């Protein structure tokens, strides 16, 4: 999986983000729209698409989409 695929999935899943509005360095938590409901939707999206569980600690530790991508990539490999 390329990081752009993850970005595209997030942009499709959330109406709050338009196509091309996110990049690898975007910190989702610092966007104006971010709520706990967004976190649940993101967790469910990653679970469905990659069969990978992202937890609250993961979301707290990441600073950008690239960090999230690396967590997913590592868990898919392991």
């Amino acid at each position, binding site marked *: 999986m390329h990081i752009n695929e993850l970005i595209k999935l997030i942009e499709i899943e959330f109406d709050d983000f338009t196509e091309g509005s996110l990049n690898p360095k975007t910190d989702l938590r610092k966007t104006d729209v971010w*709520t706990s*409901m967004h976190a649940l939707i993101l967790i*469910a999206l990653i679970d*469905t698409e990659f069969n990978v569980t992202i937890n609250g600690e993961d*979301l707290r530790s990441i600073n950008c989409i690239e960090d999230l991508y690396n967590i997913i990539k590592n868990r898919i490999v392991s």
Partner: protein
Amino acid sequence: MKAQIKHISYHLPKTIFSNEDYFKLFPDTISNEENLLKIGTESRHIIQTNQTASDIAVDAAKALFIEHDVDPKDIDFLLFCAQEFDYYTPTSACIIHERLNLTEQCGALDFNLGCSGYVYGLSLAKGLIEGVGLKNVLLLTSSTLTKTFHEKDKSSRFLFGDGASATLITASETSNGIGEFIFGTDGKGADKIIIKDGGARNKITENSYKEITDDYGNITTDACFYMNGISIFIFGLNIVPKLVNDILQKEQKTISDIDLFIFHQANLFLIDKIANKLQIPSEKVFNFMKNTGNTVSSSIPIALSEAIKSGNAKKGDTILLAGFGVGLSWAATIIKL
């Protein structure tokens, strides 16, 4: 003799708290309305502050007696599932027993469980009927969780409503009835849904009222209800598919053998994800939370009652019930109506 669910009724408090009321109270959440609607709730019933879980349980039991022409004198055992009891002691079931005018020979027992409570209650009723030899067990569930919420807890106030249910389980000459059970517990997650102070472990102190804000700006205190929504969502997403597969395996059934699935009505978004993971056709999943919200231990019996009333669940149908939540605790069973 097999234990069989004979009748179900329920009671919801009169006061309604709609999404319109919610958005007036928390205007900053209106921009997130579209996502919040994925929860599947448009209004909830809220108990009066001077009412208790036993009060609405009594109302549910009286509704059962009237709607289904049940004589209270025929009840052999009363089981009361709640998390908010009238007193430290005595047992609330004894008070309910008196208010329902049950006989002196009728046993009465409280048990403290949340969202898995109804399925646990069915297992206790089955044991009392098939093991002890009783004929009629009245299982009451009641949740008044909204009384424990911090006024600024915008997550809990959106998700939950109050309600009580009454189920009559009887000994029947039938091959139908309540089947096998799967249970599960993970006490490591006890702090994920908790009211920390005010019980025997931690007395209420000045610190109990100190406001605590989580990562998403949700506010509560140690004297009020707290739920780590993210952890509980992940718990549901991971544990329930396994729970369903385990009970299917124990009953030597597959998804196609089940006519209807009724999950604890935590929220529609989570149930949809669980159903997708299990590849359950959407028409086989019955939900009823639009005007009730998450009613904790009452959510499954309320949904089951509505499934029967609406004809979605018919005599002879095979129904899988799965509860999961505070504890952490989970349980599933398969019943044949």
